[in-house]
């Protein structure tokens, strides 16, 4: 059937299973929006800023595992998407971003609202396409979704000139796609898997170190099974939280800069480190030279470039983590007595770890007069649904959430790990809530990050997205302030957000509800009221202004050099 480019795009999206898109209209996508007007199979949500639209598509993708889709117009619309795209790229989130472009005849002429978005996004997308001919459009969309969701996932941008949206072509969506330069290795090599298992079963002090790849690869179940069968403890990165239940005694929680004492001690003293879907980020390793100094390292990752990028690796396995973990479990089944011997042999090690846990558990000092942010996080966990989705911004509140919320299920934490994007939380939560209208979606943010995308209050109210926004308000850009306190002699340069904002009135101005807690004994009541109130709610907690995130490994120090909570 012959149809115009705009319609072809929408038909392609439908066939890719897209039910929700986040987009912002403009001159070069007006034809697309005209088609969308009568296209009922796709729900369109209008954010109040393109950056938020991309974060929402990102939150949607993280929460569902599907490819998130965002639309923006050319020029400023397209450039506003960059932070959102870079955020998704750093965390390997599958997304397709569609930008309008000036008509092909005007490209390169500095036309009104023209930006070379292909050039601009080249370093922050997995791949990008400029569609020059409507006849290529369907195949390009097919390729874009295929590239976005396979291998190491990532955002793919399609730049769609206005005249290509208007031009017509015969529509046929290809069933399969073949890209000769793109053949991700999915199946882990069986020999490598066997070698890995024999290394594991020969270890006396093993630790499993899990990253976001396990969540992206839907392998939380296999990972949990492996750890429990072997009785080997698990530590996760920020992106890996939720891949292993933190309520489990084998969980060591977060490792790295703000990791637990026991996770960092375990990694620093282990004789075997099994890295699964993790990339040895500097926030995890601290000083590379003294990272896991006694350990052999097994590294399982779908992306060959992650392997041996930062640390030496003794046994690499390139492949989809689910495939590799399944194969490891199979090898394990054939072990018999050897497994029991192994479990016995690592008892002294797990006891040593228990000793570290007892010596320095995660802690903070509660007071009767001032609300401690960690207390709010603990209360939120206690009072929220077990399958609640939490979206955070970036900074102190993010680390406290990672340390104290206790994530037990995959895809329940949405957080910008790699890029560290402030302003991510509210729009990401919006995307998750659009995907799961009946689940509890909580934003945990600081007063700084919240103000970076607070315009999205309009979007959540308009679309009845009942996100519960918890602002830990310390009137500071807390994490930078913490660094200034520790490393810059308390010279709080430009980190004090002096203007006291009335967040309750702000909520009301947008048609949402707002509640405030100023004392510890008000926290529980505010959370209960916030959760019980229908629709979007702001809960503001006036927290201890100069509380620090601890433990902390100073940048560039080794993991054992932790500043601990006194």
């Amino acid at each position: 059937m012959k149809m115009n480019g705009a319609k072809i795009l929408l038909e392609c999206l439908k066939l890719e299973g897209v039910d929700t898109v986040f987009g912002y209209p403009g001159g070069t996508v007006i034809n697309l929006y005209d088609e969308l007007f009568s296209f009922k199979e796709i729900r369109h949500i209008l954010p109040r800023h393109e950056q938020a639209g991309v974060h929402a598509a990102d939150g949607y993708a993280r929460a569902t595992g599907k490819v998130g889709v965002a639309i923006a117009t050319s020029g400023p619309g397209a450039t506003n998407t960059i932070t959102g795209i870079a955020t998704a790229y750093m965390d390997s989130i599958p997304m397709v971003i569609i930008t309008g472009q000036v008509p092909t005849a005007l490209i390169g002429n500095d036309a009104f609202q023209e930006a070379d978005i292909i050039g601009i996004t080249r370093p922050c997308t997995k791949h990008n396409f400029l569609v020059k001919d409507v006849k290529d459009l369907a195949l390009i969309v097919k390729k874009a979704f295929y590239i976005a969701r396979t291998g190491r996932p990532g955002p793919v941008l399609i730049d769609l000139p206005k005249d290509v949206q208007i031009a017509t072509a015969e529509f046929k969506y290809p069933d399969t796609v073949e890209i000769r330069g793109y053949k991700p290795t999915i199946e882990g090599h069986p020999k490598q898997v066997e070698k890995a298992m024999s290394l594991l079963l020969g270890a006396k002090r093993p630790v499993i170190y899990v990253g976001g790849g396990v969540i992206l690869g839907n392998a939380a179940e296999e990972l949990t099974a492996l750890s429990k069968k072997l009785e080997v403890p698990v530590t996760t990165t920020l992106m890996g939280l939720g891949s292993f239940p933190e309520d489990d005694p084998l969980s060591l929680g977060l490792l790295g800069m703000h990791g637990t004492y026991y996770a960092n001690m375990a990694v620093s003293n282990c004789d075997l480190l099994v890295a699964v879907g993790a990339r040895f980020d500097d926030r995890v390793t601290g000083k590379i030279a003294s990272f896991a100094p006694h350990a052999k390292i097994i590294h399982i990752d779908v992306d060959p470039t992650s392997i041996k990028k930062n640390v030496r690796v003794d046994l690499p396995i390139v492949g989809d983590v689910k495939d590799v973990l399944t194969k490891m479990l199979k090898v394990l089944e054939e072990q018999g007595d050897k497994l029991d011997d192994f479990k016995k042999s690592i008892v002294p090690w797990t006891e040593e770890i228990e000793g570290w846990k007892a010596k320095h558990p995660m802690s903070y000092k509660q007071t009767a007069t001032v609300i401690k942010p960690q207390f709010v996080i603990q209360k939120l966990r206690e009072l929220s649904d077990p399958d609640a989705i939490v979206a955070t911004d970036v900074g102190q509140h993010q680390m406290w959430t990672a340390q104290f919320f206790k994530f037990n299920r995959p895809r329940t934490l949405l957080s910008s790990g790699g890029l560290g994007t402030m302003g991510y939380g509210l729009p990401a939560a919006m995307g998750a809530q659009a995907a799961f209208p009946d689940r509890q979606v909580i934003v945990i943010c600081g007063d700084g990050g919240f103000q970076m995308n607070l315009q999205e209050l309009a979007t959540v109210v308009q679309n009845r997205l009942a996100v519960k926004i918890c602002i830990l308000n310390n009137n500071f850009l807390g994490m930078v302030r913490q660094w200034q306190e520790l490393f810059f002699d308390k010279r709080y340069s430009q980190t004090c957000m002096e203007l006291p904002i009335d967040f309750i009135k702000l909520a009301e101005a947008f048609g949402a509800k707002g509640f405030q807690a100023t004392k510890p004994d008000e926290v529980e009541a505010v959370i209960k009221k916030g959760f019980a109130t229908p629709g979007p709610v702001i809960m503001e907690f006036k927290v201890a202004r100069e509380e620090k995130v601890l433990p902390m490994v100073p940048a560039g120090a080794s993991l054992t050099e932790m500043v601990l909570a006194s």
Partner: protein
Amino acid sequence: MKHTIAVLVENEFGVLSRVAGLFSGRGFNIDSLSVAPTNDETISRMTIVTRGDEQIMEQITKQLNKLIDVIKVIDFVEGSAIEREMALIKVTAEDESRAEVLRIVDIFRAKIIDVTPKSYTIEATGAPAKIDAILELLRPLGLKELVRTGSVAIGRGAKGWKG
């Protein structure tokens, strides 16, 4: 250490920028880069001369392979490839130096491709070291302009990479 890499890529716009961007974005060096279509017009072949230790070279080849438009990457082990480069060299050639330039051109089996009363333009081809050598001899005579293509390389032996 110096490495010569051949990269087969889709012959599409923007591919050169993806490859160059990869090198600049990750802080890898490019000593030279040459690119042109192959026998299969949908494929272009780049020859990149770069340098780095084993770990950097591993990253370079892996990162190149990761680009969607890259079809094949061949990192030539030293001695496994034949490398050639062409240089066009404009030298001052007046009075007594005219004969000396001709002698050098002859020794290096180069060619004079343009002549004026005050200059010769020379075409020289060969391994990069040979080009370096002829330049070293010509430089004292007065180098007016120099353009080098950068290396192209092909593997030794009967085996060929299609494209």
